[in-house]
Every structure is written in C-alpha cells, then in structure tokens.
C-alpha cells in the first residue's frame, strides 16, 4: 500500500491510501499518523477511495490514529469508503465511531 500525504489550509493533513490496508500495511499507517500528529498536525483526513480492501488490522490502525489525534486535541476523519470497507465498518459497529464523509472537503468541514 502507498500513502500520499498532502496538506490543506496549512494544518489539515490528508493521507491518501492506495492499495490494501491489511496487517502488512497497518503498522505503516499507524506510524505515519503518529508522525503527522508529532509534527503538530492532529487534524487528519484519511482518504480511502483507492483502498480496495481493509481488514481488522487496518481498522485497528485507524482507531489508534483516532485516539492519537484526539489526545492532541485534533480528530481523524475518513472519506472515500468503498463497499468492502463500508461493510467491515458496519459489521464491527465502528461506522458511528469512524463516520464516512462523502469527500475530503466535507471531512474538513468545521476545521
């Protein structure tokens, strides 16, 4: 999986993931989020529109990132949820915790 990082409005970080978010890729995502928060950017959007598959390890990395960003008075929001990812979120009842936003712009609303 590839992770492309960009910034919006100066301090909102957008992580665009490309590929499969599984147990191989999850530690890298967690590390990238940690690094982003450590840089002083705790408001993070994770764009999943190019993620074809996510397993529970990927879900764990998103939850870890959510906690990390909130500890730094920020938040982590997701967008671009595909069918498989949406179903995994629903089955694990995490669609309320990691609410899917329709676009990066919508995800940053209020920031």
């Amino acid at each position: 999986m590839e992770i492309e990082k960009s910034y919006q409005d100066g301090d909102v970080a957008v992580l665009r993931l490309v590929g499969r978010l599984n147990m191989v890729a999850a530690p890298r995502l967690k590390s990238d989020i940690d690094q982003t928060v450590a840089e002083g950017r705790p408001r993070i959007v994770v764009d999943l529109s190019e993620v074809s598959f996510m397993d529970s390890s990927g879900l764990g990395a998103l939850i870890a990132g959510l906690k990390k960003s909130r500890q730094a008075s920020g938040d982590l929001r997701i967008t671009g949820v595909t069918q498989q990812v949406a179903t995994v979120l629903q089955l694990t009842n995490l669609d309320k915790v990691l609410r899917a936003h329709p676009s990066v712009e919508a995800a940053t609303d209020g920031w």
Partner: protein
Amino acid sequence: MAGDYALRGLAVPESLDRLHELFERVRTDWPDIDEVDLSMFETAIVEIHGNVVEHGHPPGQVIYAFELEVHPDRIVGVLADTGSAVPDLSSIDEGLPDDLAENGRGLWLAKATLDELDYVRVGDRNTWRLVRNRTGATTRA
C-alpha cells in the same frame, strides 16, 4: 460445476498477497459472483490466515494450505495449517471489544461475514471450513 483453486506455502505476511491474488483470479473467472459475497469471503479468509501468520507456532515456519470451491449456491473454503498450538477462539463467542480497542475483532469479523465457520484440530493440523451462501442463488436455481 465447481471452480477449484488452491494455494500452499509458508504462513508469512507475504502469503496474504497470494490470497488476494487468488481472489482476483476468481473475480475474473466468475464475473457473475456477487461482489459483496466474494469480498466478504475474502475478508474472512484474510482474517483467519492473518491470525495464523501472527500467532502460529513456530513463527515463520507454519505451513498452510488453502482450497476454494465456487458452487452455484455457495462459496466454500478450507484452510489448514501445521501450527502446533490451538488458536484462541474466545473472541468469536465473546463478541466485539470496546469501540476504541485496536485489536480483537479479526475472528469475530470472519464469523460475521460467513454463513458457516467451523474449526477442528485433527492430528497436528488446524483446519477451518468457511462457507458463504451466494446472494440470489435460490432464484437462479
């Protein structure tokens, strides 16, 4: 007519890619399979195999074998491995962990995506059997 697919090798992180590639072949060979059925079956097998990769003993030396059959009414998979320990199945019955837990959902998720999930240990092998009924199968029959 059933479509048969098989994989065998060391249960290491790279073997997850081989499983995903197998499912890409199934998608190509069986374009009429409902994508939700196939992606949920793929989710289940990746969770169970991931558990073997992460917790199998001895680490890096466990050999796995996976077979998949596509039937008109269901998808059936059998995953066997040589791990020396019986896997911890408690999370399947205990349900989901707290919302902010970072792990502990894998086997529960596998069970939730399938119609049948059975585990047996026979001799020195762990064997999982996975079944997902195909959407709309009864109307096509």
